[in-house]
């Protein structure tokens, strides 16, 4: 249990700072809103459409890959800590583990999950021919 005091203090400071700056700015800052100020900030460009538009499935896939490889890395911590006790045998285990997951990585890579450019999006070519509204209609619909 020793050594957690510092972490506790740090958490308290971090949370306290976050909450206090939100509350204090409510009281200390001047407030005279105009429609322009109320509008969402879009780097100076006027916002188009609803901000809550659905995101691309790619975000999910990347988050999913992050999650699963995060687990892989989490397994590496205890292995690294016990490396000297485990020796070559431990290395062999972690190698097999990583090789199996490497197959998954190759699969993901080759399936284009990691491609982010517009050309990797099958909709991109459709959009060039038919216009973006058609793509939008079919993106989450049942069309192929």
């Amino acid at each position, binding site marked *: 249990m020793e050594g957690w005091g510092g972490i506790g203090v740090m958490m308290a400071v971090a949370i306290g700072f976050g909450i206090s700056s939100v509350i204090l700015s409510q009281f200390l800052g001047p407030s005279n809103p105009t429609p322009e100020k109320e509008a969402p900030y879009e780097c100076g460009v006027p916002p188009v459409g609803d901000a809550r538009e659905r995101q691309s*499935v790619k975000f*999910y896939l990347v988050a*999913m890959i992050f*999650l*699963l490889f*995060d*687990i892989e890395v*989490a397994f590496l911590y205890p292995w690294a800590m016990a490396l000297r006790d485990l020796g070559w045998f431990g290395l062999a285990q972690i190698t097999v583990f990583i090789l199996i997951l490497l197959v998954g990585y190759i699969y993901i890579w080759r399936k284009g999950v990691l491609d982010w450019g517009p050309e990797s999006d099958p909709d991109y070519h459709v959009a060039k021919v038919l216009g973006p509204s058609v793509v939008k209609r079919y993106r*989450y*619909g*049942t069309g192929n």
Partner: protein
Amino acid sequence: MIPLSYYLVLSGALFAIGTAGVFLRRNIITLLLSVEIMLNAVNLTFVAFGRQQGVVDGQIITFFVMTVAAAEAAVGLGLVIALFRGRESLNPEAFTALKW
């Protein structure tokens, strides 16, 4: 020192909340979250028992359970996305192609 039964009752309560959530809620995301609560309740039990016995096994099993939870979350959310392709609703009542 805190008695073991405190931890067990706490995890039992968490597990019951998760169970109730799975059955009472209609939102798919919340259903998945309820299952996560249940798994976390079990994790607390494992760690508490492991600590009580002074063994490291409880912590290791918990680690494996987290891995399973992650894999389940990935597949479960993938299914939610697949489910959404044709429909607009998050309410399981709206899925009536098959009877419950």
